[in-house]
C-alpha cells in the first residue's frame, strides 16, 4: 500500500476544546512554520487545555510559554508573521484583550495596505469568548465588535466542534490576520461528530442551523445554542417556524445568506452576548434595513447584553440574553 494514500477519516465525538486542540495539532504537524505563543499554553496546556499535549509533542520552541505581557505576545506575533512564521497567539481571556488594541488597531490590519501589498500578517489570535461559566470579573466578555470595526482583519467564532476544527485550520492557512473567538461555555458542553483528518470550513460562510419560514434568528457563538432552545419554545407554544443562521465568520460577513434568509421570512431577531450599542448586531441591523427594507414585515429586533458592564456572575444570567429574552423579541416581531 502506498504511504501517500490517505486513510479514511474516522469520525469521533469530540467537544469543542478537543476540536480546537486537534486543529492546532494537525496544523503544527503539517507546517513547521506554525507555532503557538501565549500565557500558560505550554507545560500547563492552556487554562482551558486547548493546547494540552502540544508542548510535549512539538517542544519549547514551537509551543511557547511567554512572559505575562499581552502587548508582547501580540506585537511579537505580528513580527513573527511578517517574517514568515505562522504564529497562533493566545490571549488567555477575552477581558485581557483590550491591552492588545494598540497593536491590533494601529498595525495588525494595516500592514498589508501600508506596505502596498509587500508585507502580510498571516497570524491567528485565539481567545475564549463570552460568559455563563461563573468566572471572575473580566473573564466573561464579548469584545467582537471592537475587532469587527477594525479594517484588515477577519473575525471568526464557531459554535460546534466540527466548525471549530475546520474554521481554525482555515484561519491558520488564511493569508490575512484572523481573530478567532472560542465560546468558553461550549468548550465542554458542545459535543459533536468530528472527522479525524484535515478539512477546512471556509471563512466568510454562515451555517444554516435550521430552516424555517416565519422568522429568522441571526446569531453567533454560544448564543446559537440559546436560540435553538428559543426556537423549540416558539414552535411548541406559538406554532412558529424559525430559521436560525449561525454566522460563524463575523467579518467578512456572509451577507448573501443573511439577506436571503431575512428576505424570505421578513421577520428578524439578532441575538448576541455583547451590549447592543455599537455592536455587530447594530451593523447587521443596518445592512438588513438598507438592503431588505421592502421585504421586512416587522421592525428588526436586537437582543444583546445591557449597556452596562458585565456584572459579577451572580447576575450574569440576567445580563446575557437567555431563551426567554429571544422568545420575547421573536414574539414582538411575529405579532407586529
Amino acid at each position, binding site marked *: 500500500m502506498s504511504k501517500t494514500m490517505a486513510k479514511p477519516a474516522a469520525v469521533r465525538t469530540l467537544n469543542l476544546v478537543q476540536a480546537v486542540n486537534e486543529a492546532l495539532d494537525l496544523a503544527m504537524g503539517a507546517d513547521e512554520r506554525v507555532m503557538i505563543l501565549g500565557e500558560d499554553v505550554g507545560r*500547563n496546556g492552556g487554562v482551558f487545555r486547548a493546547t494540552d499535549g502540544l508542548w510535549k509533542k512539538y517542544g519549547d520552541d514551537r509551543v511557547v510559554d511567554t512572559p505575562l505581557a499581552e*502587548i*508582547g505576545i501580540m506585537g511579537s506575533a505580528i513580527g513573527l508573521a511578517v517574517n514568515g512564521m505562522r504564529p497562533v497567539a493566545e490571549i488567555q481571556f477575552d477581558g485581557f484583550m483590550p491591552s492588545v488594541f494598540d497593536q491590533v488597531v494601529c498595525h495588525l490590519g494595516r500592514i498589508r495596505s501600508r506596505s502596498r501589498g509587500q508585507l502580510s500578517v498571516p497570524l491567528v489570535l485565539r481567545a475564549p469568548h463570552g460568559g455563563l461559566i*461563573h468566572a*471572575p470579573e473580566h473573564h466573561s466578555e464579548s469584545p467582537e465588535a471592537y475587532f469587527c470595526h477594525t479594517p484588515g482583519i477577519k473575525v471568526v467564532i464557531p459554535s460546534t466542534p466540527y466548525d471549530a476544527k475546520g474554521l481554525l485550520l482555515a484561519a491558520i492557512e488564511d493569508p490575512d490576520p484572523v481573530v478567532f473567538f472560542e465560546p468558553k461555555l461550549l468548550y465542554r458542553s458542545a459535543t459533536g461528530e468530528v472527522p479525524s483528518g484535515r478539512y477546512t470550513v471556509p471563512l466568510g460562510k454562515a451555517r444554516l442551523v435550521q430552516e424555517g419560514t416565519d422568522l429568522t434568528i441571526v446569531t453567533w457563538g454560544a448564543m446559537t445554542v440559546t436560540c435553538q432552545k428559543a426556537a423549540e419554545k416558539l414552535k411548541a407554544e406559538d406554532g412558529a417556524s424559525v430559521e436560525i443562521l449561525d454566522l460563524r465568520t463575523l467579518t467578512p460577513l456572509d451577507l448573501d445568506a443573511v439577506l436571503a434568509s431575512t428576505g424570505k421570512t421578513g421577520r428578524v431577531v439578532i441575538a448576541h452576548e455583547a451590549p447592543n450599542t455599537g455592536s455587530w448586531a447594530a451593523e447587521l441591523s443596518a445592512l438588513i434595513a438598507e438592503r431588505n427594507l421592502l421585504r421586512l414585515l416587522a421592525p428588526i429586533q436586537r437582543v444583546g447584553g445591557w449597556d452596562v458592564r458585565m*456584572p459579577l456572575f451572580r447576575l450574569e444570567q440576567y445580563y446575557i440574553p437567555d431563551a426567554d429574552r429571544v422568545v420575547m423579541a421573536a414574539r414582538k416581531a411575529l405579532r407586529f
Partner: protein
Amino acid sequence: MPLKTVATLEVQRLEILSPDGTVDEKLLPKVSNDLLLEMYRLMFQIRAFDERAIMLQRQGRLGTYPMITGQEATQCVPPLLLRKTDWCVPTYRGGGVYFARGMQMRYALLYWAGDDRGTHFPDGNKDMMFSIPVGTHLTQVAGLAWGEKFKGKGGVAVTYCGDGTSSKGDLHEALTFAGQFKLPVIYVIENNGWAISVPRRRQAASQTLAQKAWGYGVKGLQVDGNDALAVYKAMSEAVSRARKGEGPTLLECETYRMSHHTTADDATRYRDAKEVEAWKKRDPIARLKLFLEKRKLWDAKKEKALAAETVKWIDGEIRAYEETPAPNPLNMFADNYDRAPWHLVEQRMELEELLKFKGGAKILMELPPTEGRFP
C-alpha cells in the same frame, strides 16, 4: 577615548529574621511589642481565613478563589505603616492587604461568590479595587500619588503587583512617571515565584526584579518577603521617604505561592512538589512565631486562645456572607452614570418585563430591594 563607567547598579537584599529564628540585631527595626503581636494576629487569621475560603469553594459555597497562603507577611505588614487616608491598592490575591486595612472579610467572600456588593471598603479608607487585567492599575496609582503630591499633606500611595505582572509594559510606564515626577508612591512586587504555570525565571532575564527600579530613577530593594520584620523595615523606610517628598520606591518582596494559582488551577501539572516543600521551611508565620516566643511575647496558651477567637471570627464572617440576601437583578443598572441616560432607563424597564415574563406580575414585589443609585 577609553570606555567610562557612567552608571553602576548595586542591588541589596534585606533579611532580618532567618527561618531558624535568629535575628540580625543591627538591622532590627524599632517595633513595639503590641505591633509585633498585631502583625502575628493578622497573618495567623488571614491564613485561617484562606483555608476556610478554599473549603467553601470545594463545597460549592464560593466561586473561583485565589489563595493567599505563604504571602501573609508581604500582604499584612505594609498596611500597618499606612494611614487610613493613604491610598492602598492590592492585587486580586491581596485579601491579606484588605484585611490589614480593616476590611470585613464577609465582603471578600461575597466578591468571590460573584456578588458585586463584595466591593465594600471601610469608611474613610482610601482603598481602590484591584485589577484583574493585571498591572493596569499601576499607572493609576502613580496618578493617585501625584494627587497626594498636589495636596501637599504627606499622603502616599502604595500598590502591589506580581512577578508576572512585572513583565507588562504598565510597570515600565508607571515607574517612568513615578521617577520623573518624584511621586510619593511605593510599588511592592509580590514575587511569589509563579504566574499561574510560568516560573519567575521565565518572566525576565534580569537577575532581580528590584533592579528594574534603576532604569527609571526609582529606589529599588529586594526584600525577604517571608520575613515580617524585613518587610516592615523596608516599607517603613519607603513610606518615610515618600512622605518627605524624597521620591518613589520599588520593593521586590520574595515570597512563595504555596498553593494553586486559584481553585480553578492544578499546580501539580507544572510545579515540582520538592520546591513547595523547601518553601515550607521559610514559612512567614512560623518564623515570626519563633521570634515572638524567644522574646517571651508568645506561648502555646496565647496561640490556643487566638485560634479559638479566629474560628469564632471566621464563622461569623461566613454566616454574614451566607445570610446576605440574593442581589436584585436590577442592581446592575445602578451607579453606571451620575445620571442614568435614556437607554439605561429603557433597558431597566426591559429587564423588569423579562422578570415578569419569568416570574409573573408579582415578581417585582417579591424581589429583595434594589441597591445603589439609579437617578
